[in-house]
């Protein structure tokens, strides 16, 4: 039994679903950031799976999926940096980071 593209896609789907569950159930803001990183990894796994198995169309250079994965890693790094900065700012103002109690914008 060989490992095909669908194996990687199912693994990416499961990882993304786990991350989604974490984002929805965590009350800690840093816990939400951890779950977000799981979802980024799932997307990268999907991209590299397609990069390995999908034939290229005309004019495309090999390694296209890897290039997109690098873009996603860069954006994820920027997101984690800003997310941690926001969490620290929330902690400085509220002295906790429980997301269900940070409801200043909730009417």
């Amino acid at each position, binding site marked *: 039994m*060989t*490992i095909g*593209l*669908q*194996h990687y*896609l*199912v*693994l*990416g*789907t*499961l*990882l*993304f*679903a*786990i*991350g*989604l*569950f974490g984002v929805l*159930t*965590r*009350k*800690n803001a*840093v*816990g939400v*950031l*951890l*779950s977000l*990183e*799981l979802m980024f*990894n799932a997307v*990268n*796994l999907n991209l*590299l799976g397609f*990069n*390995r*198995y999908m034939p*290229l169309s005309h004019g495309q*250079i*090999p*390694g*296209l999926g*890897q*290039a997109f994965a*690098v873009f996603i*890693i*860069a*954006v*994820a790094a*920027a997101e*984690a*940096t*800003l997310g*941690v*900065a926001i969490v*620290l*700012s929330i*902690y400085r*103002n509220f*002295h906790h980071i429980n997301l269900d109690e940070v409801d*200043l914008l909730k009417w």
Partner: protein
Amino acid sequence: MASPVAFYLLAALILIAAGAVVTLRNVLHAGLCLIVCFWGVAGMYVLLDAPFLAAIQILIYVGAISVLLIFAIMLTQRISTRERPVTAGTILRGLVVGIGFAAMGGYATFNTEYAKFTPVPHPGSLLDLATNFLTPEQYLVPFEVVAVLLLVAMVGAVIIARKDEPSAGTPLVRTAPAQPLVVTTVPTRIEPAPPIPVASTPPTIAVAEAPKAAAPAPVATEEKPEASADKPSIEVAPATPEEAPDAEGADAAPKKRTRKKKTTSEGGPQA
């Protein structure tokens, strides 16, 4: 070609670590499990013939982002602090959404003809990756834009997480009482004032005496409605707008007086 044993071992490692990330109540332990998950994903990149991406994964995710998140955990709470338990309704909603998403993705995957794809001969070497990034017809512009994005994120993170100056604004929710910064310093500076003749500044005396005269007046108006609360008398209503400017003058006048005395006391030793 990936061997099935390596794939299933890495998949089990990734999924178990990811499940621990989202279920452990101690957030620091969750962060450590996230590092294990990142390692598993890096191994999966090796199986997918993307060794450069595996190196990037280890450098950036395991090396940088995990440390950043663990710093955030340690800066915001005690290590032994457990997250408050979530309600069963929240877990149920999360399970419904997560399982629903997984079912949708699995259904789409197994109903698409993915099994006919075999590994391509050239999945992309490092030279191909560089050609993709640095050819203007390919992705040179997005590559540069990502560099600008990282710079913007860095500057923005510094600005957001910077500790404000005391005058830059008050915190949104203040649990600790405000520190009296100004009040303690003012009377000590006023004390060396007495040798200065105050008679040269008559308006300050007039303003300074006005609040003393006006001070008992608002107290009287406040006591009146308490004493006769049953009848909302007409006497109180016109009295307050007349004395309201006096009360404001009582607030504003001492500031004027202290400032002028400060200037005279500072000018005194020089003269």
